[in-house]
């Protein structure tokens, strides 16, 4: 069924179609519509689930942990300050190997208050052990939610689905909404091998010794690294059923590209247009939408940029004292494996639009053209006051 629908509404509808069983969430702009819609779906009986209207995001994740550990499919949604407040619980959910799926609306962290898009909120949680997926459009929000539960429940790890604040949360697009039966065939009910259960009393998360602790970490790393492949397979199967693919790395004209513009989130569209425009000027450009940041999709990324000489990387975030986080990740992925030059640009935070022209200008600068911004450390900052 075709439908005109907004990003946050889509997340709620996707949770309904995924037949989530427990929802615990707290409102925050620009995610709020998702929690409002879910209350209404459950209130009207259109979703048979328990809704816990918690008093904070820390509690929202605590409730999801309790629900997931006892064998229910749990969902929550948050953004920036709420995600930061959850930090302790993010570690706990991933360490507990709980397949919770969460929407995060990417928004700036205070101070000063700013409600617009910034990726520092989620990227600064990248070491908590959550799988991180960044949506490029509204259809991606719907589809990746189903893929997320498929992968999460296979590898027993939580997944964070990221939506650019306002650019995606508040944009309406025409999307294809799959039938419930189709979704059910793709996403079977959650039936964990292991759960906290009175018929099989055991402890969950109490104390263990050093050997077991280290071994658990090792297993978790092994299983997290396997997510790249698991997601690719889940995406391939999704594509076979629904005709749409949502791979960890999504390329545009990469086969012969010497220059690749790399973005995460909604900037992927502008990046494609910029690459196309640059080709007309004789620059052999392509673009790459890095949909998955954790685990970093090493194999697919290296392969996708194997022919590139220059990578122009957009960061809507910064690791203070380091550089843009995506640029950092890419350098780490390519170290010793590629001689491509990585050009890091920091732009697009706090409400600054990322346009085709801006990305094309950054690329021109990377190739020796006119300076666009201020150089600082390893990055070039766009549109900042000196």
């Amino acid at each position: 069924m075709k439908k005109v629908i907004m990003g946050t509404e889509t997340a709620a509808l996707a949770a309904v179609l995924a037949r989530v069983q427990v929802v615990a969430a707290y409102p925050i702009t620009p995610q709020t519509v998702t929690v409002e819609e879910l209350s209404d779906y459950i209130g009207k009986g259109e979703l048979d689930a328990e809704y816990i209207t918690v008093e904070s995001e820390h509690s929202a994740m605590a409730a999801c942990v309790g629900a997931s550990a006892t064998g229910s499919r749990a969902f929550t949604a948050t953004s920036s300050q709420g995600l930061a407040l959850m930090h302790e619980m993010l570690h706990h959910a991933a360490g507990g190997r709980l397949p919770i799926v969460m929407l995060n609306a990417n928004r700036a962290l205070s101070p000063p208050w700013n409600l617009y898009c910034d990726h520092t909120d989620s990227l600064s949680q990248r070491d908590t052990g959550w799988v991180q997926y960044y949506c490029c459009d509204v259809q991606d929000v719907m589809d990746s939610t189903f893929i997320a539960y498929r992968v999460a429940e296979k590898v027993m790890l939580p997944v964070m689905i990221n939506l650019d604040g306002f650019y995606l949360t508040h944009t309406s697009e025409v999307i294809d909404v799959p039938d419930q039966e189709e979704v059910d065939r793709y996403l079977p009910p959650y039936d964990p091998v292991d759960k906290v259960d009175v018929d099989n009393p055991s402890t969950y998360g109490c104390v263990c010794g050093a050997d077991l602790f280290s071994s658990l970490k090792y297993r978790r790393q092994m299983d997290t690294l396997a997510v790249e492949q698991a997601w690719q397979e889940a995406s391939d199967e999704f594509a076979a059923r629904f005709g749409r693919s949502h791979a960890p790395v999504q390329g545009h004209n990469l086969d012969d590209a010497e220059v690749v513009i790399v973005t995460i989130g909604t900037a992927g569209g502008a990046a494609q247009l910029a690459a196309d425009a640059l080709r007309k000027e004789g620059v052999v450009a392509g673009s790459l939408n890095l949909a998955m940041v954790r685990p970093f999709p090493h194999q697919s990324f290296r392969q996708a940029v194997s022919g590139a000489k220059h990578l122009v990387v957009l960061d809507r975030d910064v690791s203070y004292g380091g550089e843009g986080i995506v640029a950092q990740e890419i350098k780490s992925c390519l170290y010793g494996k590629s001689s491509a030059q990585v050009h890091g640009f920091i732009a697009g935070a706090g409400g600054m639009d990322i346009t085709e022209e801006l990305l094309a200008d950054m690329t021109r600068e990377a190739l020796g053209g006119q300076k666009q911004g201020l150089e600082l450390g390893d990055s070039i900052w766009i549109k900042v006051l000196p």
Partner: protein
Amino acid sequence: MNSKILKQELLAPGHMGCPGCGASLVMRYVLEVLGPKTMVVMPAGCWPTFVGLYPSTCLRVPVMSVPFATTAMAAAGVRASLNRQGKGDTNVLAWAGDGGTFDIGLQALSGAAEKNTDLIYVCYDNEAYMNTGIQRSSATPPGCWTTTTPASAPKVEPKKNIVEIMAAHRIPYAATASVGYPRDLMEKVEKAKGLKGTRFLHILASCPTGWRHETELTMEVARKAVECRAFPLYEVWDGVRWSLTPMVAKTPVADYLNMQGRFKGMTAPQREVFQTWVNEDWERLREKCGDNQAA
């Protein structure tokens, strides 16, 4: 105790707590009433560290250990999940120390109680953060020694009244109990078990390590606290009907204080402050209870 009262014994021998630990006995009595169809959710504190080194456990019921601030809300998630699975008859026991209840877990507890979430919440109160080495909590009585209220910087504030806070949520049942009176404790758990919604039990749990008393005095100290009214026993129904539990005649607080090393350094004026706090709280409680006394 064993043969006379306990039939199920869901606490297996071999927990890793200190000898004479009151908190371990509280669990033993509570589970005796709640039975094997109980899920325990507990935050950081002494309990999850002494329940056993994984995969060993001293409890014959499942235990989920969760971050310090989250007990009531993690338990609410468990409750929702069990309800959704048609397991409404499984008890959810949220179990936290005074630190995890009075302090860091208070927000989550209020959130769960305000929605009258169907769970039994037990706060085992040893009047300090014991697991991290005896630091003050807001349940620590005035003048009491802890490592963050040493003689050079004594605690002057009275003990926070957590039951008044819980009563203000108008939950169906709130009560105090002491490990020194197991029969009364278990009767109160029984009453809680018979109700739905948020049920709150504030249970004094003597702690030889933190209170600095002989391990064989665990029960006696916990009884003396009640006798001198430093820890009076009572129940609150629906947040409004207060009723005193019959207790033996009031004894001087000195009898209680002198049994424990933690009160040893108290000056005469500090003892005055302690006595005043006890007297004032006792008068307020008597006013709220009026003639109500549980049979």
